[in-house]
């Protein structure tokens, strides 16, 4: 009989355990917390994957940023390439949980937990990131935009483990930002969040992408918001129109943290702030990471 807990020494060993129904655990910051809260009991069979060095990497090359599933939020937030190019991802990674969460929590676990309020999904979507899902039978690539299918559900099949995330590095001059509405500076998750990314050519927006967070059953891209920005000067009127489009694309719920009406109202505000920060960065103006603190003001 399989033990209820194994610590995998190799990826093959992990995949074998997962094929037999074990749930992977890395940082434990969602799985164990969920069990302690009584939301969902700890799975009967667990395979710890935190020792798999082959899943613990982070680096850029050939125009791509590659993140192993075990790259932690702290590592991502501190990476010079992430800070310089897909800056919105640094914004997001630097505000996940607290520094304890960021030291232990991984990008793979964050994605597979599939919270519609999680921070890193929006930035990964706007940059067209894909994940590698691997099983004993082989592996396949799935866009992050198609990975999350609902609150806590993903397109991964039984036996599949997320092993890596890959995204094309945005061209130089791209500005991006992730901004969330928060009630607390740490141990928080978006009440409402928005990601914006865009670039300019000869003073006009030539590429844009917008994603909304905690405003629908999954984080989602809003093509209508992005399309409206194309050809514009990225000024206040264009930003306001895009923010309205993002709000119109939202389908928020009411829960203990906010009413649907409040979320809908804040969708426009938060998207506008993300877009404003992204425009500033695209123009070479300094907006500190995380953008959330910069646009909502400090604590002192």
């Amino acid at each position, binding site marked *: 009989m399989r033990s209820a*807990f194994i610590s995998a020494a190799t990826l093959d060993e992990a995949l074998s355990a997962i094929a037999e129904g074990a749930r992977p655990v890395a940082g434990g*910051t969602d799985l164990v917390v969920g069990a302690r809260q009584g939301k969902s009991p*700890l799975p009967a069979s667990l395979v710890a994957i935190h020792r798999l060095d082959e899943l613990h990497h982070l680096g850029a090359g050939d125009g791509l940023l590659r993140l192993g599933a075990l790259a932690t939020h702290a590592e991502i937030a501190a990476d010079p390439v992430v800070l310089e190019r897909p800056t919105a991802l640094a914004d997001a990674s630097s505000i996940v949980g*607290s520094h304890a969460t960021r030291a232990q929590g991984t990008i793979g676990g964050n994605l597979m937990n599939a919270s519609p309020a999680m921070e890193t999904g929006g930035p990964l979507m706007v940059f067209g990131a894909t994940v590698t899902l691997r099983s004993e039978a082989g592996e396949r690539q799935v866009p992050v935009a198609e990975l999350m299918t609902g609150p806590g559900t993903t397109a991964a099949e039984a036996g599949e483990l997320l092993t890596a995330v890959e995204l094309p590095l945005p061209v130089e001059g791209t500005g991006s930002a992730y901004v969330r509405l928060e009630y607390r500076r740490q*141990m928080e998750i978006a009440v409402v969040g928005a990601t914006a990314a865009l670039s300019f050519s000869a003073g006009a927006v030539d590429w844009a992408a917008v994603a909304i967070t905690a405003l629908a059953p999954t984080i989602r891209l809003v093509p209508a918001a992005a399309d409206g920005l194309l050809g514009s000067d990225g000024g206040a009127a264009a930003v306001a129109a895009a923010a309205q489009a993002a709000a119109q694309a939202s389908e928020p719920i009411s829960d203990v943290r906010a009413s649907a009406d409040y979320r809908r109202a804040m969708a426009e505000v938060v998207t506008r702030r993300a877009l404003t920060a992204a425009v500033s960065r695209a123009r070479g103006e300094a907006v500190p990471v995380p953008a959330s603190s910069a646009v909502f003001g400090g604590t002192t």
Partner: protein
Amino acid sequence: MKLPLTLSVNGVSYPLEVAPSTTLLEAVRGDVGLTGAKEGCDDSECGACMMLLDGKPVNSCSYLALQADGREVTTVEGLSDGASLSPLQRAFLAHGGVQCGFCTPGMLISATALLEANPRPMEDEVRIALSGNLCRCTGYDGIVKAVLEVSAGG
């Protein structure tokens, strides 16, 4: 069903047997017997259970003990050198950064991790870093002053 585990806490190895669902906090408090780290929320909200795992902060209520096998765990008891308190602990005393004391072990560990990553934080950075640690007495002012004093090399 229990599984063997060697937990190294503050430099001492403890051979234990724990269930897979046992958290690091439960193992350290219940099996090792070091009760400095506290269970506040048991929900990864309050930071009272914070320890260092291989030098990095972890909310030990939300971490499986078996995953700490063979790794180095530091609790508040490990910050002092015998009877000699660490500079951070002395600063907490000097500034009255302690009221009921329940959050203090987590605060000390959290501040230790902050100063390790950022030896000279600004006040805002201290406040943000420690906002994963809740003080139910709302005694943050003395805590922040204590951390700033140590960061300035005082």
